[in-house]
């Protein structure tokens, strides 16, 4: 800790050996963006194949690999590391800490990630190809009928799970022990709160995922029969274990996004966040409920009616705390002196589109109705409204909001707004028609479809290409800002912004809050 007065080391070793939370945050963000482009490229392949009915470009076997890897890369490679990067950058700045609680572990938890995804992506070049069983890797597709590369997939998941667990422990330890004097729990910015709760979710369920893939490994190589009915096991057990991890996982993905939006909307409404306390309790309630609703992903496996009813009501209960959050965001905007800079556009876009995703979620929660929606494109539309318009929009929002603080330069507002509108139109054009084809019976994960779905699929594909292009615009805007953006002089970049991160210089110095700030 003797290097307080030094800047960063020079060259590549800076990045390999750094324990600085800002460096590590930056690496997480760039890595996740690279994964986002990779997963996005897979999505483009999928949409290109689905542009017309029939098989045009790729073989069905490769299509399956594309859908699987798109899901895996986006969930584990793009969204989760992006929010961990954001947490690394912002949590110490927001709670007045000099760094994360465990800086060395922080370095390690980042640097094992590229290896995890190198292992995962290398499976494309193996005999039998990459994993092709869907990102949910249901047994026996992922055990008895899996390509040989499944073992590499399992090790990849182990490593990225380890990385997530270390990142989560680090964040929880930072929030619990590194807050500046006077920064009580109920004074923490909401982004810190949502991440604190997310960290607990990660710590609770990533080991469950590790357990699930370990059982797969044992079934495949060591002759056990956890998921094989022939040996006295049960493939449905896999689904229970997977979704016991998987449902909290979707909140792991969205809660930090809630936090971001809860920072941005007050800033550009020039009002305090409406109902801070209720926001905290709503987040905690959502996290708790996420543990008792997992089987709503598997209504059709043959559960007793009592089970279906329990999971149906418990799932619908989640609409209550989520509704509290949405109404609080709207109430924050109510009679505020609103301006519509790019982060605010993305935040409002998030609220509108995520709410739509929430409503389709309610539809899917109705057990008897779900028998029709199950495994259709309606589900695809639903979870892209929550994950893309939820997680990705809020992430983009966060980048625009804090980029001036990170690099001391202002992004191009016109380009930013253009990117928002192109994204917004492209996104809705892609996924809104999928509600219709889903309700009409188009199944997901199939490379071909019946002729009556052709028009809507053509719209979806065009929308997807537009949305994909908007991300290149985003990349350009960020790079152009870093290289040649208008320098920002003020510490307080946005006039309505509150919080400790706006009391440090722009760009944020390499070391901040080496003496703790006074929090009133």
């Amino acid at each position: 800790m003797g290097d307080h007065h030094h800047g960063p080391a020079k060259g590549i070793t800076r990045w390999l050996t750094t324990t600085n939370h800002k460096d590590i945050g930056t690496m997480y963000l760039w890595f996740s963006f690279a994964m986002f482009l990779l997963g996005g490229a897979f999505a483009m392949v999928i949409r290109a194949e689905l542009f017309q009915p029939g098989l045009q470009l790729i073989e069905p076997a490769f299509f399956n690999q594309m859908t699987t890897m798109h899901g895996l890369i986006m969930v584990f490679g793009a969204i989760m590391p992006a929010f961990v990067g954001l947490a690394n950058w912002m949590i110490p700045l927001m709670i007045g800490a000099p760094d994360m609680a465990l800086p060395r572990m922080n370095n390690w938890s980042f640097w094992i990630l590229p290896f995890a995804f190198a292992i995962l992506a290398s499976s494309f070049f193996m005999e039998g190809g990459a994993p092709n069983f869907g990102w949910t890797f249901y047994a026996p597709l992922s055990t008895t009928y899996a390509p040989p590369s499944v073992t590499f997939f399992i090790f990849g998941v182990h490593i990225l799970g380890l990385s997530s667990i270390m990142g989560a422990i680090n964040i929880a330890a930072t929030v619990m022990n590194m807050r500046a004097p006077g920064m009580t729990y109920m004074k923490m910015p909401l982004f810190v709160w949502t991440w604190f709760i997310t960290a607990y979710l990660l710590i609770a369920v990533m080991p469950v995922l590790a357990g699930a893939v370990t059982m797969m490994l044992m079934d495949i190589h060591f002759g056990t029969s956890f998921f094989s009915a022939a040996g006295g096991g049960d493939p449905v057990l896999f689904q229970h274990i997977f979704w016991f991890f998987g449902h909290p996982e979707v909140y792991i993905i969205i809660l930090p996004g809630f936090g971001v939006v809860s920072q941005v909307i007050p800033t550009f409404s020039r009002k305090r966040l409406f109902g801070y306390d209720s926001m905290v309790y709503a987040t905690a309630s959502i996290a708790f409920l996420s543990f008792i609703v997992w089987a709503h992903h598997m209504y059709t496996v043959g559960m007793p009616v009592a089970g279906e009813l329990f999971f149906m009501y418990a799932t619908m209960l989640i609409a209550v705390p989520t509704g509290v959050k949405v109404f609080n965001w709207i109430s924050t905007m109510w009679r505020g002196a609103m301006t519509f800079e790019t982060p605010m556009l993305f935040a409002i876009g998030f609220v509108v589109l995520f709410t739509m995703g929430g409503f389709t979620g309610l539809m899917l929660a109705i057990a008897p109705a779900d028998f029709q929606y199950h495994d259709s494109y309606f589900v695809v539309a639903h979870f892209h409204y929550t994950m893309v318009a939820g997680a990705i929009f809020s992430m983009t929002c966060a980048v625009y909001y804090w980029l001036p603080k990170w690099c001391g330069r202002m992004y191009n507002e016109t380009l930013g707004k253009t990117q928002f509108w192109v994204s917004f139109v492209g996104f809705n054009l892609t996924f809104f028609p999928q509600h219709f084809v889903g309700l009409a019976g188009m199944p997901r994960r199939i490379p071909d479809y019946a002729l009556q779905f052709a028009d809507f699929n053509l719209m979806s594909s065009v929308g997807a290409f537009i949305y994909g292009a908007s991300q290149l615009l985003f990349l350009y805007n960020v790079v152009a800002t870093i290289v040649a953006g208008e320098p920002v002089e003020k510490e307080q970049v946005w006039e309505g912004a509150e919080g400790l991160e706006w009391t440090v210089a722009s760009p944020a110095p390499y070391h901040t809050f080496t003496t703790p700030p006074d929090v009133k």
Partner: protein
Amino acid sequence: MSEAREKAIGRTVKKLSVVVVAMFAFVFVVMVPLYDVLCDALGLNGKTSNERYRAVAGEVLTEREVTIQFIAQNNDGMTWGFRPADNVLRVNPGAVNETVFLASNPQPRAMIAQAIPSISPSRAAEYFHKTECFCFNQQPLDGGSSTEMPLQFIVDQGLPADIRTITLSYTLFDVTPDEVSDDQHLAAR
């Protein structure tokens, strides 16, 4: 960083690490057994009882017939011949029925097998009583020989009226405990 804070961080990390290990163990020692217990209690996944059913004298419902289908299959790497003598039986609820499964060991050495049963539809599992079953025990068989393996069962009178066909499936596992068979296991993968 102050020493007190470092200690506090250490304590936090220890606690959270315990949670991580506990959750990993939770999957294996709680979720899997709990699932089995729940399935047993609710009769969910077609697992039949491994206990011999104590036959009780009961009324035979001669006016009702249920179709019982038998399926036999080998697990990966198992080389035995294995098939039911009767593919289909039509039985009356309450009556005691007997059939045999035929097994042959084509290998030149003695092997031991274990059959694992499963019932479909799973709701029928609790109404399918086995009074005698080769699956209750392991089945040793000399090289090149064959045998008949008996099954005796009663379909419960309380079987729900909408179930007219029950499928009983057996999968045969190689449980020979020597290293020769381990080599075969690996070779078969």
